[in-house]
């Protein structure tokens, strides 16, 4: 039982550190990355808490949280890339560009 306590404390400390990065993070992508890391550690924390309290049914919640974390990350990135939830698929960045401003053949 002591190993569950140790692992739970380690995961909680890691969540606190990742939250510090999410608050400090200078760019948007640092915050998204820290949120994703917090989600992964939350999955571990749910499983460990289930074993620690003798109710392993928590694993169902952990599985659901794994699904939600993935979808949430993709949705947040898509929202901040297009600033809307129903994007028109236009070229928003010069680095994606296969457009006219990139070719240079026509000067």
């Amino acid at each position: 039982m002591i190993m569950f306590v140790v692992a739970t404390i380690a995961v909680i400390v890691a969540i606190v550190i990742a939250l510090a990065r999410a608050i400090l993070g200078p760019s948007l992508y640092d915050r998204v990355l820290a949120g994703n890391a917090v989600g992964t550690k939350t999955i571990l924390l749910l499983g460990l808490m289930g074993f620690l309290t003798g109710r392993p049914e928590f694993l169902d919640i952990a599985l659901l949280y794994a699904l939600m974390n993935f979808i949430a990350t993709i949705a947040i990135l898509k929202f901040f890339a297009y600033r809307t939830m129903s994007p028109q698929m236009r070229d928003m960045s010069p680095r994606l560009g296969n457009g006219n401003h990139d070719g240079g053949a026509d000067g």
Partner: protein
Amino acid sequence: MDNVIHYASLFLFAAGSFFVITGALGLLRFPDFYTRMHASGVTDTLGADLILWGMILQADGDWLLIAKLLIIMLFLMFTSPVSTHSIAHAAWVGGLNPLLGKELKHHDIAPDRDETKAPVEMPGGEEQNKGGAA
């Protein structure tokens, strides 16, 4: 046999806790978004998998629990590279440049540099801090 399983899961939990803490510390202390992403990958793959294997060994042969843990592990194994890749792709497309060479060395001197801008090419190298405007 029970002892072997006990100590094996003890080792797995210790190693998993170590990698989770290491990944979180790297996420806090690395100088750049792209290096922080490398640190976050340690937690996502090795730390999570080791702790989940420890939980599988502690499940007392309950096949429902083992199946659920294996499904969680399989799902993490598929989704964590995909989400990491899409974060990196979004950062690169959004114009976030990695710290390279000289910038990386000067990070401790000027830590509150605006990371969303492109790195400026600094003429003169190391002399530009003590040189003064001529």
